[in-house]
């Protein structure tokens, strides 16, 4: 008999989720298209003045990416609960929090990463100065995993309820406020030529905390959901 080593179990879970996402790659394109359309609405709604667009560009891209991620969040554990895969994950000898961490990573790779990839395009549609672009990418790279982790906890908490999409949005958006403040703060500072490292460092610190705590909270919440 050979016991499954932890690394292989992590790889198996990650590979399964990525394969599943690849089999339904149309779903991956959805948030990307949504972000693209929302960004094109800004110049229509506010008028195509460069100065105005430049001023809102960073914040607009940030909020758009956040909302696009929200679209895909709701499905993070749903199919696993419905088909019993989650039960098997709970019963597996590996720590549940780690396995869920892998699922959250897979979810981030398939929803947030495509959004980060198109973010420079979205930003240039809104005339964001090229100098602020690297800071925006850095802010997104720290803010999106944060949202995936926070979102995962809330998805786990609402796992028992039907049609949890709206409830999820109402619960997650207030929690996003600090993330948005720090990410947008860094961007605004970069655009004015001020030092922007402090808000980025705060984001990084919050992410480190969430990386450790969110999977544990997620595991506890899902155990409760299955115990009902």
């Amino acid at each position: 008999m050979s016991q499954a080593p932890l690394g292989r179990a992590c790889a198996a879970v990650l590979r399964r989720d990525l394969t599943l996402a690849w089999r339904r790659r149309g779903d991956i394109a959805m948030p990307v298209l949504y972000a693209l359309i929302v960004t094109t609405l800004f110049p229509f709604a506010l008028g195509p003045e460069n100065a105005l667009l430049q001023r809102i560009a960073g914040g607009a891209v940030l909020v758009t990416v956040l909302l696009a991620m929200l679209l895909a969040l709701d499905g993070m554990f749903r199919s696993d609960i419905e088909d019993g895969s989650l039960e098997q994950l709970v019963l597996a000898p590996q720590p549940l929090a780690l396995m869920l961490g892998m699922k959250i990573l897979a979810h981030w790779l398939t929803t947030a990463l495509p959004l980060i990839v198109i973010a420079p395009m979205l930003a240039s549609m809104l005339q964001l100065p090229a100098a602020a672009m690297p800071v925006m990418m850095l802010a997104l790279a720290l803010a999106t995993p944060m949202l995936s982790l926070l979102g995962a906890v809330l998805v786990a908490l609402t796992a028992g309820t039907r049609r949890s999409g709206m409830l999820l949005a109402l619960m997650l958006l207030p929690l996003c406020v600090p993330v948005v403040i720090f990410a947008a703060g860094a961007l605004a500072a970069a655009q004015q030529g001020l030092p922007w490292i402090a808000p980025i460092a705060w984001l990084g610190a919050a992410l480190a905390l969430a990386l450790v705590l969110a999977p544990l909270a997620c595991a506890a919440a899902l155990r409760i959901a299955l115990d009902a």
Partner: protein
Amino acid sequence: MTVATPPLLAASALSFYRQDEPVFGPLQFELHPGQLALVEGDNGSGKTTLLRVLAGLLHVDEGELFWRGEPLQRDHCAAEIVFLGHQLALKGDLSPRENLHIAVGLHGVRDGMDPTRALREVGLAGYEDEPVRRLSAGQKKRAALARLLLVPATLWLLDEPYANLDRHGIALVNRLLEGHVAAGGAALVTSHGAVSFHGGEPQRIRMHA
């Protein structure tokens, strides 16, 4: 007198309540290696709930569980228990082989076994790479049963393993159980139908609604 080996799994005064309504219990039983137990009872008598409690999906309300004579701790026995519930934990977009790779990743694999061989033994040769959603209900069940052959578990908890299966499928489940019991494993099986099991007289656990 032989030295008594502790039972693999033992329950003493095990009860489960749902919102203060008793679902089952108190139950008392011992399951030794090489033994099969049939959980019998009508619909709604708590057979599935019992299995979910034993698997560790539901918490124990009252009573105690023992694993090899020691109070049961999930960390110690998780690798030795495999649970097959109503939901088969198969991903429709993946093939049976890919589905089994997850089980191997999580639980490890028996010596000399691999997904292809396990699928052949449950009669799914030729369907290894077909997406599971295109399989019939009985074939899905067989794909889930292949997991039992594949992972190295001592205790099988099977919830209605005969459901959706044809005559050959039922014979297959009996054959799997006989092989498992003969190899020193133990199994707890719920069923409300008649079971023809040829590997000795199974223990019977009666559930009362």
